């Protein structure tokens, strides 16, 4: 069979169409196939990357859902002996020899909390109402290999300032991470059950020499206040990080670079995820001694001072003065609950809320707690604001300490007229300082609104978007219309050519209609000639009406009139000239007027 050029072209077009079809439909097919799940084909499996590990290892726990790419996250079994970190999920879709497969993998990291043999129970994935369970996995967790800390490149320790503190005595627990290698992505997991914690200044970075080796230390201090007596454990803390391994290329870096990233050229290297675990520490918390314990002791432990100050020392009966009591020092001052002083019957007293101002350092917690009282004297004369006692336990001395403020004199004079008791008052002291704040006695919500005028609907949804759009556009449209009218009027006023051409047609028609067909034909021809010339003069902005036929041709040509119209105009004007001087016209006047009207119509259309 002879292949003609035509058949080759047809075949190549068919091949092109086939190829195009494949390329167009294949992605669509893939997209459709990716989202499709067949419950019957679904398999859920769980796996770990190792089954034996130490307390300083982590295990990667993966749950693979095969047969779908849109599986919901699995429900994990109870994992009390591990900390669980979610490392996200990934999906895959493959077609091999026409068989398609899709899967979703959920990845978790398990960090062991204790040694022993543990069974990871079945994880559950609920797909289409059917629960798919994984097989259980056994993990064996052993103690970390005993390696001397000082021979390691990186190690961590937890240090406490005092292993036998009293209840409520502040101690400092410091997590220290020593390293001679470059690390990144440092994370710590520190818990202090049985203690109240307060953050201290830090973390602090130092260099330390240990057994002749120079280490960079990273220290995270925490202030702890033991809550109960007896043996209390500080559990092992976890330190996670990525160690940079540069043995596979890259330039050696300085491990003492505090950020581990010295320069942009040192960013190459393999990251190796590692976990360190500090040793747990047992503290022997001592009870506060019963001996010498004051009656109104309120668990304040540390070293403190107390002071008192009056805002005004001379007042009238019923006036207010503010007593400020400040307890400052190092220890659990935030826990202080100052017992109510014995005010006697000389004053009416209103207590404000206390204020705590911490001044935290790198090793200790200190601060001051300020109590304010509004005192309203009830008697005149020289009164005494009673001394305010404070008892605390000093752990350094191992004994209780009692201190108190000095009694403060207050001179109260009779009122100058209105001596009624002012229960709550804002005033100012004699020094012109800010007056006593208004003492708040109680708090409540403000009452409901009842005025009928306020209950009109504020519903903004009543107007549609189109209405708001129209409301916004209307002024612009009105402006455009007004602007057009204004510009036209302005042009008519100041542009003579435009003004003349604007009314030319109407003016000519008016004159044309005013002609009487019964008049002398010569007179009509003269009038018609005048009307047409005047019209041409107006639309072409020419002065006078004495326009020759040649001028008409020239001007109309410039005005882009068609040759036919120009010739018709010339012909008509010549006809009118002839008729004006001819003894008889031969043309009916109505026909002459009609011809002129037709010409004006055509010229107007083109002008």
């Amino acid at each position, binding site marked *: 069979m002879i292949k003609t050029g035509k058949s080759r072209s047809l075949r190549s077009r068919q091949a092109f169409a086939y190829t195009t079809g494949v390329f167009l439909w294949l992605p669509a097919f893939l997209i459709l196939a990716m989202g499709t799940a067949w419950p019957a084909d679904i398999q859920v499996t769980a796996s770990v990357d190792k089954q034996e590990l130490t307390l300083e290892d982590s295990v990667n726990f993966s749950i693979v859902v095969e047969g779908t790419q849109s599986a*919901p*996250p*699995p*429900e*994990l079994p109870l994992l009390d002996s591990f900390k*669980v*970190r*979610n490392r996200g999920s990934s999906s895959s879709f493959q077609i091999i020899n026409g068989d398609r497969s899709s899967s979703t993998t959920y990845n978790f990291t398990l960090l062991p909390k204790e040694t022993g043999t543990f069974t990871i129970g079945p994880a559950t994935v609920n797909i289409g109402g059917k629960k798919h369970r994984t097989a259980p996995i056994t993990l064996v967790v052993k103690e970390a290999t005993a390696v001397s800390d000082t021979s390691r490149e990186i190690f961590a320790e937890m240090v406490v300032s005092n292993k036998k503190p009293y209840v409520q005595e502040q101690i400092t627990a410091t997590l220290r991470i020593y390293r001679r290698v470059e690390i990144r992505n440092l994370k710590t997991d520190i818990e202090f059950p049985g203690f109240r914690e307060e953050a201290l200044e830090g973390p602090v970075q130092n260099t330390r020499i240990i057994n002749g080796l120079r280490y960079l230390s990273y220290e995270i201090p925490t202030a702890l206040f033991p809550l109960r007596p007896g043996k209390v454990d500080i559990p092992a803390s976890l330190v996670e990080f990525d160690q940079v391994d540069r043995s596979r290329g890259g330039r050696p870096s300085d491990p003492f670079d505090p950020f581990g990233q010295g320069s942009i050229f040192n960013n190459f290297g393999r990251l190796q995820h590692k976990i360190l675990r500090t040793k747990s520490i047992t503290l022997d918390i001592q009870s506060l001694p019963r001996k010498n314990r004051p009656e109104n002791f309120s668990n304040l432990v540390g070293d403190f001072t107390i002071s008192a100050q009056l805002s005004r020392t001379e007042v009238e009966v019923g006036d207010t003065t503010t007593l400020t009591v400040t307890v400052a020092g190092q220890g659990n001052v935030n826990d202080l609950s100052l017992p109510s002083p014995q005010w006697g019957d000389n004053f009416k007293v209103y207590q404000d809320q206390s204020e705590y101002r911490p001044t935290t350092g790198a090793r200790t917690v200190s601060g001051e707690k300020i109590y304010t009282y509004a005192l309203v004297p009830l008697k005149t004369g020289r009164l005494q604001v009673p001394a305010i006692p404070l008892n605390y336990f000093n752990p350094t001395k191992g004994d209780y300490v009692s201190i108190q403020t000095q009694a403060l004199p207050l001179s109260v004079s009779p009122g100058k007229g209105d001596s009624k008791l002012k229960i709550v008052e804002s005033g100012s002291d004699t020094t012109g300082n800010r007056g006593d704040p208004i003492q708040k006695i109680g*708090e*409540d*919500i*403000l*009452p*409901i*609104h*009842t005025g*009928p005028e*306020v*209950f*009109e*609907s*504020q*519903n*903004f*949804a009543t107007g549609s978007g189109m209405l*708001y759009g129209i*409301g*916004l556009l209307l*002024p*612009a449209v*009105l*402006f455009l219309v*007004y*602007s057009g009218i*204004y510009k036209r009027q302005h042009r008519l006023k100041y542009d003579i050519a435009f003004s003349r051409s604007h009314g030319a047609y109407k003016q000519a028609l008016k004159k044309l209609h005013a002609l009487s067909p019964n008049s002398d034909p010569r007179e009509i021809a003269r009038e018609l000639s005048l009307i047409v010339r005047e019209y041409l003069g107006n639309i072409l902005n020419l002065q006078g009406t004495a326009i020759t036929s040649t001028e008409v041709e020239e001007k109309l040509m410039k005005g882009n009139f068609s040759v036919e119209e120009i010739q018709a105009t010339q012909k008509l004007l010549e006809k009118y000239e002839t008729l004006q001087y001819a003894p008889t016209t031969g043309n009916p006047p109505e026909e002459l007027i009609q011809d002129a009207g037709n010409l004006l119509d055509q010229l107007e259309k083109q002008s």
Partner: protein
Amino acid sequence: MTNRYLHFKVFVVWVGIILLPATTWSQDSTGISQANRLYNQNQFREAAEIYERVIAGGMENGHLYYNLGNTYFRMGNLPRAILNYVKAQNLLPRNEDVEANLEYAVRQTVDQMDGRKPYALEAIFFWIGDLNLNEHRIILFGINLAFWIAMAVRLHHQTPATYTARNILLAFLVLALVSTGFRWHQDTHQSIGVILPQQIDVYSGWSPTTVVLFQLHQGTLVSISQEKENWYEIELSDQKKGWTLKSNIAG
């Protein structure tokens, strides 16, 4: 005769159209007065039912939400009280009563935190939150009208003064347009919710098997950033975010 009936029907329809909103408002007004009276008689449950009914009838009014907030507060339903104070504040952004009661109600919660994530653009367009959407629109329409009037005046008087006035109005118009747009976006796209249970766990993902990031307590205000199945992603003002079940949030 037919025409006369037609005219009568048209007349009746027009009277109906004109009087219908007035009748509805009158019914709402009566209901609100009754609810206010019940509130003052400490019959809070009955008052709340009436306020809710009026709101369900389509009435949007900041004072109404405020009163409903007070009623829920008296009933001890702190989350609903806070939610209604927030709705009231949206409509009455400068009302001191609403602000005081919302602040007080938030102080009664365990977290004592208004966790609503501030609108990022409020740092620049600081006035957005001080006006409700309707006020923004009125200002926009006013400035728009003034701008086009200035344009028309400038057709007649092309002086430096009209040039400056037009340009100033143009600048204000752009600002009004942008701030109205942002406020509209804030009202329609920013969802606020309140925690309903006494305490909830906030997870790192939309599954209870994911890591618990933090805990929140009843009445805490949060911003809802997205939803997935029966989970909401919530955000707090201090950039914390996490997932919790929709049933834990009223919004």
